[in-house]
Structures are given as structure tokens and as C-alpha cells.
């Protein structure tokens, strides 16, 4: 048996290596989202599967923790930290004001999806006898787990199919923001209410008071955060170094996370609020860039740890309910998002595309389930159902979304409305993908210099959202092509930015051609590389 710290280091190393390799192969061979690979790797190497295997010298790699907990307290704390970083970054990527103004359809679709998912998720617990009433912790958690969409997976499909700028694509992206914010509010309320329940305060008035308190904390902290954000960012800038700024911001995110836990809410809510507050400052890119490396290591470990918590034996008797819950989770988004879309000018095709685009659940569903499990509000059986639903929706979502676009029928009831949407796509083709990627980088830099918020939607694809106030662009690159989509109102800005960067590129090429010094530089670099006659290392 290894000492605790050595065992933790081994566990972490194995998780990082296997999730990376598993995620990579799943993406490469089956073209499935990396998150599925990470979850499955966690399930396979976890304490309920290979983790129990006795290895020579080191013993069991993932034994049960104290008191029969599926993972060690160290590993769980690490994954909690990962979830805080994840939600801090998620808040940071949200620009509330832009999206509040951006899309009426997005608002209706986002709200519809959250309300119907919560209702059907909670209802599932009551109908199948998992909870006595609608306000029981089991019911509330199954409702909350069903609400949050993970739009990154759909964004990749939209980008691959060149549908990012379609009315459906724009609506899915806008709706996802409302979904995120509402999902966090639902979580705040659910955690508060379930704590009141488990502490014995079962009276309706008490539960409603807790819900109001949770909602109040959320609104109060968010409003304070948004109001103080600029002052806070000025304070951070005093430290000049970007590393210091990012570290301080994340540190304060952790502090707010702790405070929100003390206030009776989940830690991720505090982290999300801190990210959301900073999203309105010009420090977004600095913080994102500095934390990116940390995120790349932490997030797969988080997903794998969630996978490790799955107790196959506990799910087996619940498999049927799990499948029904998954089916309801699918139906709730298709109906909850699709029906409002029908009232916002979309036809049946468009509504289905929007509904399936909102299907995948991801990190927030897993975090909510994890909180429920560790707080004792839900058991391993319900947790298993949640993981099953996340796996099924993440697997089916991209496939159904891609399939829904196979039929080229327009998604709007009156295709002429497309003209009303006034979307314009500027397309450029380059002789090589290297050249396209180079220019893409220049365009991203140019928008950042103009103080636009630029962020990459998915690490798997070169797809960016660029925004400032009501201005919104989608920038994509695939192979040697670059596409920039916006509304007709901002087409001039888009064309001018690209034209300026093309000019810089051309100037650079001319300069390189005219500058003989570069030739000598290349020559000097390789000259003498193999000219030595003596020992290795001798020139």
C-alpha cells in the first residue's frame, strides 16, 4: 500500500495520461466528443472496475476512500477545484448584455428548454417513486441535472457543417447563454432547498424562504460583481504582469466560491459569478490565456473523476428508469426549445434542429450530480442515472444535429425571413491551411486590438465568437478557407478588418522577398551544421 501522497500523484498521473489518450482516440477514430472518452476512461479505471485490480508493488490504483467513498478525499478535492476553474471560465466567456440584446428567439428557446427540462426531470423522480413529492431533494436534483446544455459540442457540429451562421445556429448559441445563466440560478435554488429538506425543515414556507435567499444571493452577488468589475479590474492591472492578474482573479474566484458555499449555495456559483463579473472587463483574454494551460490539465481529470463515481451495480436495477430519464431529457429539450422556436418564425425542420442542438449535457450536469452525491441529497443510483443521461445526450446530440441538417430544407417558416436576418458571410480561400491559420490569427489579434471579446468555442475546431456590445461575428477556418459571418450592418467593419490584415500579410511577404538579409540568416543558421571533422559537439 502506497503512502497517501504517492498514491495521489500516481492517480493523477494515470488520469491525465489515460484521459488524454482516450479522448484523443475517441475523437480521432469515432469522431465523438472528447468528453465522452474522458468519462468512459474514468468509469473503466475507477474503483468500480479496474481500479480494484491489484498491481505488483503499488497495490490497488483506485481503492475506495475512507468510509467507502468512491474516490479519495484528495482526488475529490482536486476535481472540485477543477469544477470551480471550469465554471469560473464559463462565467468569463459570457457577455450578458450582448446576449440579452442579441436574440429574442434565443431567449425564448433558452427559457423554454430550462423550464421543460426541469419539470420533466423532477417529474420523472416523482412518477417513478424515487421521490415522495416535487420538492424532495431527489426530484429537485434530477430536475437541475436535466437543465444545463453544453453547447460546445453542438458548436463544433455547426462549424463542421458550416451552419454557424444559419438562423438555427445563431439561435442555439444565443439560447445557450440563457441556458447557462438560468441553469446556475436553478442550481442555487435547488442546493438551498435540498439542504433545508435534509436538515429537516420540510415546511413549504421554509423551503420557499431558502429558495428566495438563494435567488437573492445570486442576484445580489451578480449585481455587485458587475458594478464593481471595472474598479476590480483597475486594481488587478496595478500588478502589470498578466500571470499575476490571472492568478489574482482566479484566487478571488476561489474565495467567492468558498463564500457562496458558506452562504448555503454551491461553490461553483461563486466561481461563476466572479467569472461573469470579469466578463465585462478588458481582462477576459488575459485571464483566459493564462488559465488555458491549467484548464487543459484539470478539466479531463474532472470528467474522469465523475466517471469514476459511477457504481455499475447501483445503476443496474435503475437502468430502465435511467433510460426513461434520458429519453425525457431529450424530449424536454426538443420540445422545450423546439416549441418556442416554432413561435419565433422557425418551421418544423428548424425547430427540430434547435431542439437537438440543445441536447448535449456536460460539465454543469456532472457538477450538479457530484454536488448532490457528496452532500447526500442523492444516492449512487440517481448519480448513475445522471451520468447515463449525460453520456446518451452527449452521444446522440451531435449525431442528431448533423443528421437534422442532412435535409437541406430551410429552417424558417418563410425562407424570405433569411433576408430579414441580414446575415452576411465573407469567404476567403487560401492556397494552404498554414496561410489561412496565419491570417486567422492576425484577424483574431486585430479584433482584440479593437477591444472585442474573442473566444474559441471548442478546442477541436478553429471557430471563434467575436463580440462587443451588440456587434457579433463568427470566425471559422477549415483547411485553406476562412469565413467571417455577421449582420449586414457590420459587414463594412468585417471587410475593413480583414482587408487591413491582408495588407499587412502582403507587406510582410514583400519585405521577406526584398530583404536579402533573411537569405543570409537562413544560410548562417544551417551553414556549418555538418562541417565538423572532430568529436561530437565540436564545430
Amino acid at each position, binding site marked *: 500500500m502506497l503512502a497517501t501522497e504517492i498514491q495521489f500523484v500516481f492517480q493523477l498521473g494515470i488520469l491525465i495520461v489515460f484521459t488524454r489518450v482516450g479522448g484523443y482516440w475517441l475523437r480521432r477514430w469515432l469522431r465523438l466528443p472528447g468528453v465522452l472518452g474522458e468519462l468512459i476512461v474514468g468509469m473503466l479505471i475507477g474503483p468500480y472496475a479496474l481500479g480494484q485490480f491489484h498491481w505488483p508493488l503499488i497495490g490497488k490504483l483506485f481503492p475506495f476512500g475512507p468510509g467507502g467513498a468512491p474516490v479519495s478525499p484528495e482526488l475529490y478535492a482536486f476535481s472540485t477545484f477543477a469544477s470551480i476553474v471550469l465554471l469560473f471560465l464559463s462565467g468569463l466567456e459570457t457577455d450578458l448584455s450582448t446576449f440579452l440584446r442579441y436574440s429574442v428567439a434565443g431567449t425564448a428557446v433558452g427559457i423554454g428548454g430550462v423550464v421543460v427540462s426541469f419539470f420533466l426531470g423532477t417529474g420523472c423522480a416523482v412518477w417513478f417513486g424515487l421521490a415522495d413529492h416535487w420538492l424532495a431533494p431527489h426530484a429537485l436534483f434530477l430536475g437541475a441535472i436535466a437543465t444545463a446544455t453544453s453547447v460546445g459540442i453542438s458548436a463544433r457540429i455547426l462549424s463542421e457543417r458550416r451552419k454557424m451562421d444559419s438562423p438555427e445556429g445563431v439561435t442555439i448559441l444565443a439560447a445557450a447563454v440563457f441556458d447557462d445563466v438560468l441553469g446556475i440560478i436553478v442550481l442555487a435554488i435547488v442546493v438551498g432547498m435540498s439542504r433545508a429538506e435534509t436538515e429537516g425543515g420540510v415546511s413549504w414556507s421554509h423551503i420557499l424562504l431558502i429558495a428566495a435567499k438563494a435567488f437573492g444571493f445570486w442576484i445580489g452577488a451578480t449585481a455587485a460583481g458587475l458594478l464593481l468589475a471595472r474598479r476590480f479590474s483597475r486594481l488587478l492591472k496595478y500588478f502589470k504582469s498578466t500571470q499575476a492578474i490571472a492568478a489574482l482573479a482566479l484566487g478571488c474566484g476561489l474565495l467567492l466560491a468558498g463564500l457562496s458555499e458558506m452562504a448555503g449555495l454551491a461553490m461553483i456559483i461563486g466561481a461563476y459569478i466572479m467569472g461573469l463579473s470579469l466578463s465585462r472587463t478588458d481582462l477576459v483574454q488575459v485571464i483566459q490565456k493564462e488559465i488555458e494551460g491549467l484548464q487543459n490539465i484539470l478539466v479531463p481529470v474532472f470528467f474522469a473523476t465523475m466517471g469514476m463515481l459511477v457504481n455499475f451495480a447501483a445503476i443496474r436495477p435503475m437502468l430502465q428508469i435511467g433510460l426513461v430519464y434520458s429519453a425525457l431529457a431529450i424530449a424536454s429539450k426538443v420540445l422545450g426549445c423546439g416549441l418556442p422556436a416554432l413561435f419565433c418564425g422557425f418551421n418544423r425542420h428548424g425547430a427540430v434542429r434547435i431542439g437537438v442542438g440543445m441536447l448535449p449535457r456536460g460539465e454543469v450536469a456532472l457538477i450538479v450530480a457530484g454536488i448532490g452525491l457528496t452532500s447526500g441529497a442523492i444516492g449512487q443510483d440517481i448519480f448513475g442515472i445522471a451520468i447515463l443521461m449525460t453520456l446518451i445526450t452527449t452521444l446522440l446530440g451531435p449525431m442528431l444535429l448533423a443528421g437534422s441538417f442532412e435535409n437541406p430544407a430551410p429552417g424558417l417558416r418563410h425562407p424570405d425571413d433569411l433576408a430579414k436576418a441580414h446575415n452576411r458571410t465573407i469567404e476567403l480561400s487560401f492556397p494552404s491551411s498554414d496561410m489561412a491559420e496565419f491570417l486567422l490569427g492576425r484577424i483574431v489579434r486585430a479584433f482584440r486590438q*479593437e477591444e472585442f471579446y474573442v473566444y474559441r468555442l471548442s478546442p477541436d475546431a478553429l471557430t471563434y465568437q467575436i463580440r462587443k456590445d451588440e456587434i457579433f461575428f463568427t470566425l471559422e477556418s477549415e483547411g485553406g478557407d476562412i469565413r467571417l459571418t455577421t449582420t449586414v450592418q457590420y459587414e463594412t467593419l468585417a471587410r475593413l478588418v480583414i482587408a487591413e490584415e491582408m495588407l499587412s500579410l502582403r507587406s510582410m511577404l514583400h519585405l521577406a522577398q526584398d530583404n536579402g538579409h533573411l537569405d543570409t540568416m537562413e544560410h548562417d543558421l544551417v551553414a556549418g551544421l555538418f562541417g565538423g571533422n572532430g568529436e561530437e559537439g565540436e564545430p
Partner: protein
Amino acid sequence: MNLKKPLTVETICLDLKGATKEAILAEMVELLVASGHIRDRDAVLKAVLEREKRMSTGMQNGIAIPHGKTDSVDCLVAALGIKRAGVDFGALDGQPSNIFVMTVSPDSRTGPHIQFLAEISRPLNDASVRAKLLAATSPDEVLHLLIG
């Protein structure tokens, strides 16, 4: 963004004198000096000329948007000039240019530059706005037409 701040009655000229592209650019830079945010006039002119050397900013229908970046300005500065007779600016459509919108902003600081150019020149897409601008009799009228 707020277009009113950089473009003021002091930085608008309804009757540019220059007869060549270089003369017009120099005259426009003089207008920018009126903003009070320019530390080195020659450096500003050099930045604008450098940009013109890469490709003319003369667009279509008489519009030209000369611009540049240099740390010789404290913040984004803008000027608008009109030369009714037009000047050969090497425009895309080969026609003389008669409405000039110049923008210069700091090189080492982030902030709107192209966005300002795009927003201020958006109304110029409208032929009737262009006609009204050319017929304007006061800088106030120009400001009203472009910014409202």
C-alpha cells in the same frame, strides 16, 4: 461606440484646398492638430502616408478613409474634409475622391480604430447622404448628417 467625441466642428473642413493626394493628407493632418491630442504632426503624416503606400484608402463614390496608427497621438483622433471638385486619390473605382474621413489612433494601445472608421463611414453608403454632405454649408450640418 461614441462617434461624437473624436469628430468635432474644429476637425471638419468643408473646403479643402489641396490639389493632390499628398496635399489633401497634409491638410487633413492639420485639421487633426486642432483636436489638441497630437504630439508630433510629422509622425502622424508619416503613419498615414505609410498606410497609403500599401494600398490607397480611396474607396468608391468619392469616399476616402485615410488612416494610420502612431504613438504620437494620445487617443483616437478624427477629421472630415470635403473637396467638392475631387482629387485623384487612386480610388478603387478610378473616380476622384471628394469626401475624406481621416482617423489616427495610438499604436501601442488597444481601442477602436477600424470600428470607428466603419461606423463613421456607414452612412456614406447612402447616395443621398453623400449628396447632402457635399452640399453642406456648416460643420454642424455635417455632424448632424453623420452622427445625428
